[in-house]
């Protein structure tokens, strides 16, 4: 019998790894720390993602502003205050998604 890499005395794991390597079953190792943002990396996916993040924050902010206005009877002051804050939160969301990982 041909000499196995890892030797006939090598552990089962080693021989299995060598055998899998010969058959090309292992493939390149997956990069550690898989980046979940990479799964939606098509331009349309990114666009949709950014759009949803921006609008979602704005919707929540308007809902809060409108609700507080209704509660205190101050319409439209608090809605007007919360709209720019919601916009800022949306930008903050987008930044958190796409910020460079070093920071």
């Amino acid at each position: 019998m041909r000499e196995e890499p890892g030797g006939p005395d090598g552990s089962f794991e080693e021989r299995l790894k060598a055998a899998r390597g010969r058959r090309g079953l292992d493939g390149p190792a997956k990069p550690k720390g898989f980046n979940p943002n990479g799964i939606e990396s098509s331009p349309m996916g990114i666009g949709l993602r950014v759009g949803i993040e921006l609008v979602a924050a704005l919707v929540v902010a308007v809902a809060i502003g409108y609700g507080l206005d209704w509660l205190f009877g101050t319409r439209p002051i608090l809605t007007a205050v919360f709209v720019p804050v919601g916009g800022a939160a949306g930008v903050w969301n987008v930044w958190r998604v796409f910020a460079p990982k070093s920071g």
Partner: protein
Amino acid sequence: MGVAGVAAEGHGGIDALSQFKLEPVFGQLGESLHISQANVMMTVASGLTLLLMWVGMSPRAMIPGRLQSAAEMAYETVMNLCVEQIGEEGKKFFPFVFTLFFFILFGNLMGVFPLFFTFTSHIAVTLGLSLFVFCLVTFVALKEHGMHFFSYFVPKGVPVVLLPLMVVIEVISYLSRIISLSVRLFANMMAGHVMLEVFAGFVVMLGMAGGIFFVPAALSLSVNVVLIGFELLVASLQAYVFAILTCIYLHDAVHLH
């Protein structure tokens, strides 16, 4: 998908949205109990998940067959997702993430087949799911960290003057998860099915016009074939995105940042 809307072409124009309409099923009984296609499909999705695990794992073979491999891969994929994204504590949340992932996956995938109904194309369903995730995440964070959880909303290294503003922005950003999580799944599924419907409508209308119009009709049909493939990708991807985002939120809840 498809059939009802295409059949309704008669009165001109493409009725792409009627496919999402809920109708009572099972006749009188369903009407009085308010059972719609969505409820039936949810039951089918849960049943299929159970069936995959049950039938797949019943041989308990050392060298798994195809179905057992599928079941084992399903288990391992979700387990790895939990452990990689949340950490060792993630194993606690495995049943939840597994249920969520397969409920959405089967819901999305079934929608590609004719005569089935995509319940994930309803915002009521996806919003329900994301609200549940949000409540769970908040509950876990409160249980793990008590009142210390609220420090999550106070970013570090911010001047005191800006702090009130930043806290409000953080709270809005936290709450916007409900919307972004649900709208992402809903928009993807609905957009895909509307596109399928529109191109199917083209096929019918151009095909009926006859003559030279058979060429664009055939083109629309080939576009639809491509779209079906694309839908399969989107269906799996969106289920995965929902599960992975749930895991990321749970990671935040367990570790606070």
